């Protein structure tokens, strides 16, 4: 171990400031004795004690002493670094000492407060801790924080409601946006939907204005029928190549990237007789039939919830499908030909205008629903017997076979109540007793186990609608690899932190929103998109990113290019250069040190937490005194 660095270079001049913290430390540790001891340690040029080091006069004392004694590194032995380190670092900088030449020793949380009844031992420990700090300080080196300029342009991948919302937000903030959509049109999955829940506007009416705004915005460059072909670089400086149908790839430079590639409904091959009868369809196909005005007249319809979800083809609950089923069930029960487009002539002339009276009616209904809600939840159990305000019974039987209804949130719950009022039946099934769809003499029937009667029942139906879960885009893995951001176990993009960073990826500069990070309805997608745009705008607005100088540094003469570090890094902050040697993207490195601890060649140094510094500390901890 090269212990002599300090003597070869200019000899370090360490200043040690030991704090009484009133009596918090001083009451349980002999601070004077520790200070005296500190002044005997190697390279300590000055040691003193203060009543409150963090107070104005304490800070001034540090600044003055630095000048007076020509100190080049500072130790404050007081409380936890997690609170005051930035304060003391600023003080050092103000006196011309690089902030990385500062070391904290924790005498309060880690000593005086936990050894309150053994002053002698606490004092001995305090001396050891100061000795450890000095040992570390001797090997400190000044660091420059990397500051990287940011190209103030964003890339949004996916032109659904999420991507469009994100692109518009950024464009409205004044940033140029490249919007890449693999389809030949914007709009995403919502374009193929018919009616939406909780609004009388059709899906098309809802999404159209958003598409128009995107089309009209001068800051948004659209790349339709296109995909991201390659991505190089890091936060602030991505070189992205956008490939189109047969066209020459376009090269763009962007500072931040938002992933909004949505999801697709599961195709329930082999489940519930799907494809065995034209009357067995998925909820997405139901929407399409409505859109095309091809829905046949129905007398009895069964929805089967969780078709393929929760332990069948996928393990999770897709959240939105119950609400989607409730929406469609209400529309069927209301027998609103105009919405469902049952007959062609009617649909052609009625169009959207017919929906107006529906809107009024809806307002009325909502009022009565609220009244009912106030009356209490008791009636929920009554399985939706119609009451005043409910639409006249249409004569269509609608049954929703479910494991449990996930009508989360106030609005969805209201819709759920409304469905019950429309006499939609909700029949539970257990995971071991899935409903059976069969075809008898060309007619559909659903067999199920009645949980209360504990009996097998059959129900003839005209149509079975399978509520299949949203699943990840089949090509999500490709994009995940290009951007070096993770997919969770279900194949959806995985955010940095479920609770605290829901729209960030762990990798700086890349963000996520909408159904590509898990099933979400439109309102949720829009809020996430607004959030992601806001997060992505921060580096763009700042114009630069500055990283703490806690990073890894690869010694290219030692690196053999084994690639271990590249694999280990959680932030994709390491890559191999043209010579096959590892290199660090300082702006992306978070300084965790995982690579440093793994490199078999010892080729990686962690700045400010070097092996040398850490081992010097450990050694000092174990010295016999």
């Amino acid at each position: 171990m090269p212990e002599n660095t300090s003597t070869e270079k200019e000899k370090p001049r360490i200043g040690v400031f030991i704090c009484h913290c009133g009596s918090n430390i001083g009451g349980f540790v002999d601070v004077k004795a520790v200070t005296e001891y500190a002044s005997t340690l190697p390279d300590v040029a000055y040691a003193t004690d203060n009543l409150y080091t963090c107070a104005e006069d304490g800070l001034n004392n540090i600044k003055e002493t630095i000048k007076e004694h020509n100190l080049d590194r500072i130790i404050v032995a007081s409380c936890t670094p997690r609170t005051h380190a930035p304060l003391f670092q600023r003080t050092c900088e103000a006196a011309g000492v690089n902030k990385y030449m500062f070391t904290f020793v924790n005498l309060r949380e880690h000593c005086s407060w936990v050894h309150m009844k053994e002053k002698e031992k606490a004092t001995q420990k305090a001396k050891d801790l100061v000795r450890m700090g000095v040992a570390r300080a001797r090997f400190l080196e000044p660091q420059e924080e990397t500051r990287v300029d940011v190209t103030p342009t964003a890339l949004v991948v996916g032109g659904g409601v999420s991507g469009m919302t994100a692109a518009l937000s950024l464009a409205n903030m004044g940033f140029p946006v490249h919007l890449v959509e693999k389809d030949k049109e914007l709009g995403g999955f919502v374009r193929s939907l018919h009616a939406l829940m909780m609004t009388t506007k059709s899906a098309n009416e809802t999404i159209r204005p958003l598409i128009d705004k995107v089309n009209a915005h001068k800051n948004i460059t659209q790349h339709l029928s296109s995909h991201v072909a390659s991505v190089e670089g890091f936060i602030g400086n991505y070189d992205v190549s956008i490939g189109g149908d047969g066209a020459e790839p376009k090269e763009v430079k962007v500072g931040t990237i938002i992933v909004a590639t949505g999801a697709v409904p599961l195709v329930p091959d082999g489940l519930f007789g799907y494809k065995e009868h034209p009357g067995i369809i998925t909820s997405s196909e139901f929407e399409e039939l409505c859109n095309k005005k091809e829905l046949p007249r129905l007398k009895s319809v069964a929805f089967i919830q969780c078709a393929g979800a929760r332990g069948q083809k996928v393990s999770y609950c897709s959240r939105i499908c119950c609400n989607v089923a409730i929406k469609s069930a209400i529309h069927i029960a209301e027998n609103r030909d105009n919405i469902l487009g049952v007959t062609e002539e009617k649909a052609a002339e009625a169009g959207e205008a017919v929906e107006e009276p529906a809107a009024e009616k809806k307002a009325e209904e909502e009022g009565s629903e609220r009244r009912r809600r106030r009356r209490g939840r008791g009636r929920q159990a009554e399985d939706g017997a119609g009451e005043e305000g409910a639409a006249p019974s249409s004569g269509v039987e609608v049954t929703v076979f479910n494991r449990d209804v996930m009508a989360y949130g106030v609005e969805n719950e209201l819709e759920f109540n409304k469905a019950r009022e429309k006499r939609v039946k909700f029949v539970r099934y257990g995971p071991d007793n899935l409903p059976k769809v069969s075809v008898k003499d060309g007619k559909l029937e659903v067999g199920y186990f009645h949980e209360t009667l504990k009996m097998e029942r059959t129900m003839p139906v005209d149509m079975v609608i399978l509520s299949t879960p949203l699943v990840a885009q089949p090509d999500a893995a490709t994009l995940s690899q290009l951007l070096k951001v993770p997919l969770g176990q279900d194949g959806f993009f995985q955010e940095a932190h479920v609770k605290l960073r829901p729209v960030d990826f762990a990798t700086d500069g890349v963000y996520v929103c909408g159904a590509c990070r898990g099933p979400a309805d439109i309102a949720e997608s829009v809020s996430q998109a607004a959030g992601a745009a806001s997060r992505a705008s921060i580096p763009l607005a700042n114009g630069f990113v500055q990283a703490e100088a806690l990073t890894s540094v690869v010694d290219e003469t030692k690196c053999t290019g084994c690639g271990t570090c590249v694999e280990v890094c959680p932030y994709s902050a390491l890559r191999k250069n043209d010579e096959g040697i590892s290199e660090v993207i300082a702006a992306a490195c978070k300084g965790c040190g995982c690579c440093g601890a793994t490199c078999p060649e010892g080729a990686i140094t962690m700045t400010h937490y070097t092996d040398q510094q850490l081992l010097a500390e450990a050694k000092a901890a174990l010295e016999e005194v």
Partner: protein
Amino acid sequence: MVERSEAEQDQPSYNPRIVAFCCNWCSYAGADLAGTTRVQYPPNVRIVRVMCSGRVDPAFVLKAFTLGADGVIIAGCHPSDCHYINGNEKTATRGDFLSEFLEEAGIESQRFRVEWIAGSEGQKFAEVIRGMVSDLEMLGPVAQEVA
């Protein structure tokens, strides 16, 4: 409670020395909380702060034993709580490897621990230290000969 072993009565002055590598975000914060809440524990531990438990090279642990540590702890965030996503997974893997390696070298398993201590677990930090001190007092100093 520290049980007084015979070994310890023979050498009343034996003061085991523990080096604990604590990650900045959880376990160091846990140790801070022990302080803030005035939980008392024996003064045998010396904490070396690292940003992530994943920073701890197995060589550091071996070196600490070479330098005379009676016990070494690597403490990090609970699984899936690592501030750097999954640094602690690497710690867990290395921990398994280290335990085996040390065992083979005749260093008792109680002398090396990987612990997950959250920022809210001041009490747990204190318990870990108490537990290890009592284990080490039973064991006595590291034997020179491999049994």
